[in-house]
């Protein structure tokens, strides 16, 4: 634990990427593999299954600190991170010279908490609090509460491991994909030299991600070197067929067993040793359904017949990463497209994301403008000669999305943010006019500069009308332009509508509250109700 705490301190005490990389490399070289495996797990953002709930943690903090519960809540609202709040409120414990190794702490003390009865669990956690001090106790709390965002990206961890292993970072990225246990053996494999068969064949390849196209497509050079496709608004997924089994992985590296039985059935016709990249879409009669329909399926582990009937899905394949057990990622997109066509002749129920014919760039803006009515987000532009790369590499894959919808809304509620934005009012609720009323229609967290956030925070503190727990209502004065991707009817919301991905475009200081939009105008954007 001491070594891991020292790593955390080194990472936390610099904003320079190279210094963070050096700290990670040093740690992975020196730490025992049993500890390093857990460090990789936490630093790449994988949580432990919930061990204790936050209500219990708050109660125990109240007991251990001797403070009233409301003051613990006030403190949490101010700090914006429960793990840190607990650490700051608990009495200081004596410096200790020995502490358990990271893997011992996790495997022998933290993981068993889940099986204990309430009293014993409380006793164990309180003992851990008094046996650890400083950064170690803070990190224990981070592990207990689950979130472990410490200013290190997964990519940086991957780079450090690749440096230790002396292999390409795309190989380490692949080794980190899918399901794994934090064992010393796993860590040894992570930093092993490259070999042909060190990977479980059901492990997904790292996804290649497109970058947003900011200029006109014509800036990309000759149109003949490019392929255009629709940009689907679904769930990006990788479909693996191997040993008579099908594995569907989401981009969040979740194995979606049993959730999409119609896709699994369609994939049965694929030969072994196939890997496809594509999109899971809500789909009926060759047409996409709104994302809201797909949402009905996302949380369902075992969809029933009714759900399958009202929210049918399909897999739209747009790349082929492996065929006949051969890794095709280094081949060009045109070769992979040919492989995809051949594979899909076996599996008629898997759909092919259509390639759009176009001869010159001038044809594209008109097609892109049809995106909304076609139920897609825009166009994808892919270089025909491009290999399938790892992560977000600019240059070969571009997404050219349609301009978002926008509206002008009035700030009516604010709430403090978390983590880096703790203690600042950064979570806002916006309203539009409905008759004489202002009705809330969207919550947004992003889009303002730090200077604007600071200024707005001061204003909110001085113009609070009422408090509801951490939420404050403010005088309706400030108007903001918000962007959003789509709109759905929603009986759960007072306004009757729900927006997809609302975010702040800019602070409209030139507008007065009366200039904000009206609910009836937003409702005109609703799609026609399905027949």
């Amino acid at each position, binding site marked *: 634990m001491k070594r891991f705490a020292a790593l955390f301190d080194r990472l*936390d*005490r*610099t*904003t320079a990427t190279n210094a963070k990389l050096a700290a990670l490399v040093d740690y992975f070289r020196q730490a025992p593999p049993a500890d390093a495996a857990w460090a990789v797990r936490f630093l790449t953002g994988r949580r432990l299954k919930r061990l204790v709930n936050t209500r219990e943690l708050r109660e125990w903090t109240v007991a251990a*600190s001797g*403070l*009233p519960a*409301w*003051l613990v809540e*006030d*403190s949490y609202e*101010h*700090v*914006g*991170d429960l793990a*840190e*709040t607990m650490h*700051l*409120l608990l009495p200081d414990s004596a410096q200790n010279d020995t502490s358990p190794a990271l893997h011992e702490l996790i495997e022998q003390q933290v993981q068993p908490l889940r099986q204990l009865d309430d009293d014993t669990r409380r006793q164990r956690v309180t003992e851990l609090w008094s046996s650890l001090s400083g950064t170690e106790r803070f990190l224990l709390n981070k592990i207990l509460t689950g979130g472990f965002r410490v*200013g290190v990206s997964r990519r940086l961890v991957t780079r450090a491991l690749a440096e230790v292993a002396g292999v390409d970072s795309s190989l380490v990225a692949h080794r980190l994909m899918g399901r794994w246990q934090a064992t010393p053996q796993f860590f040894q494999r992570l930093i092993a030299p490259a070999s042909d068969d060190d990977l479980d064949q059901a492990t997904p390849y790292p996804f290649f991600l497109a970058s947003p196209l900011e200029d006109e497509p014509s800036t990309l050079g000759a149109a003949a070197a490019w392929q255009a496709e629709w940009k689907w608004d679904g769930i990006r997924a990788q479909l693996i067929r191997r040993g008579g089994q099908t594995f569907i992985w989401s981009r969040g590296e979740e194995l979606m067993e049993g959730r999409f039985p119609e896709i699994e059935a369609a994939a049965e016709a694929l030969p072994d040793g196939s890997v496809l990249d594509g999109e899971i879409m809500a789909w009926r009669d060759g047409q996409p359904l709104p994302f809201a329909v797909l949402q009905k399926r996302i949380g369902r582990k075992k969809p029933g017949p009714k759900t399958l009937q009202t929210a049918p899905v399909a897999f739209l394949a747009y790349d082929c990463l492996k065929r006949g057990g051969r890794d095709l990622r280094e081949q060009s997109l045109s070769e992979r497209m040919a492989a995809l066509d051949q594979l899909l002749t076996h599996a008629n129920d898997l759909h092919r994301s259509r390639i759009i014919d176009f001869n010159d760039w001038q044809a594209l803006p008109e097609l892109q403008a049809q995106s909304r009515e076609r139920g897609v987000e825009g166009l994808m532009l892919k270089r025909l000669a491009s290999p399938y790369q790892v992560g977000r590499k600019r240059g070969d894959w571009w997404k050219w999305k349609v301009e978002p919808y926008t509206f002008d809304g009035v700030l009516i509620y604010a709430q403090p943010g978390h*983590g*880096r*934005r*703790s*203690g*600042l009012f950064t979570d806002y609720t916006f309203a539009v006019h409905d008759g004489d009323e202002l009705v809330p229609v969207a919550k947004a967290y992003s889009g303002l500069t*730090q200077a604007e956030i600071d*200024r*707005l925070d*001061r*204003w909110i503190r*001085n*113009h609070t009308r009422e408090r509801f727990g951490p939420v404050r209502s403010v005088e309706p*004065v*400030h108007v903001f332009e918000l962007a959003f991707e789509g709109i759905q009817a929603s009986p759960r919301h007072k306004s009757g509508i729900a927006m997809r991905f609302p975010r702040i475009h800019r602070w409209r200081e030139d507008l007065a509250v009366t200039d904000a939009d009206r609910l009836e105008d937003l409702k005109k954007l609703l799609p026609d109700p399905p027949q």
Partner: protein
Amino acid sequence: MHKGLLYPDAGGLYCPAGEFWIDPLTPVPRAVITHAHADHARSGNGEVFAAGPGIPVLDHRVGGANTFTACQYGQPFDLGRARVTLFPAGHILGSATVRVETDDGTWGVSGDFKRAPDPTCAPFEPFACDTWLTECTFGLPVYRWQDTGEVIAEILDWWQGCRQQQRPAVLFCYALGKAQRVLAELHGRALGPVWLHGAMQPLTDCYRAQGLGLIDTRPVSEADKGYKFAGDLVMAPPSAAGSPWMRRFPRHSSGFVSGWMRVRGNRRRRGYDRGFILSDHADWPALIKTAQDMAAKRVITIHGNGEALAGYLREQGLDTESWNLRQNLGQRPA
């Protein structure tokens, strides 16, 4: 309605019996000023009463039209029907708390104060009062300060690390009070010179002129052109962070000395490499201890988010309120 011995009006905190304001927000004919920080000392007042050791700094900050009367700590003087005494607040050089006595009772008013030792100013002196108006900048139990010596050791370690890597160590802190406290703590524990930003130089000179022992300093402006400050300690106010001035310190590591650094998000948001938790304000335990030491039955929080402290003391059986001293000013533009 009986408004009490002091209350907020359009000028700030007003004492009708003595016809004076404490740390007025707008220019007034007669003011008692607790210390020279900008949120307490403003220019344009007529008569100004302040603690003697604070006058040179106050004069530097808000001189001009003000007529200063230097008061001795612990020596009562009369203003109208009120008897006023200044006591050391332990916040910065020449900082004071104010005791106001009239036939209606005794009130104590803090500007800002701390209970931790500080080589640059006289230590806080409690006095008995009926009503205690307390600052509570750090009015939550998450704010607890460690020993000053430990923090200075952390700063020295960091500086030493920068020296080994031949990088400048740029330490940000408030130009008045905190900077000189750090320079005094470093005195005898490290070898200077420490480089100072222009905004810190005259204030540091004020401190030296009063005989305080500070580590050797030099203004950054006197460094040779092209000098890289490798391994040197440079001190600057937070406003210099991110400014073109910082280009003089290539590859620097940055630190910020402030009580706010106790919360990690505060540091990360500002983008400092290191946060050193050292404050010139009372921490939560000291705010509570002080309310007890003043023996007041009634505690009113001012300056800061006082509701948590007021609520806590109320549960301890005290009569408490939170005042917003700006409530009678025109609304601040957003």
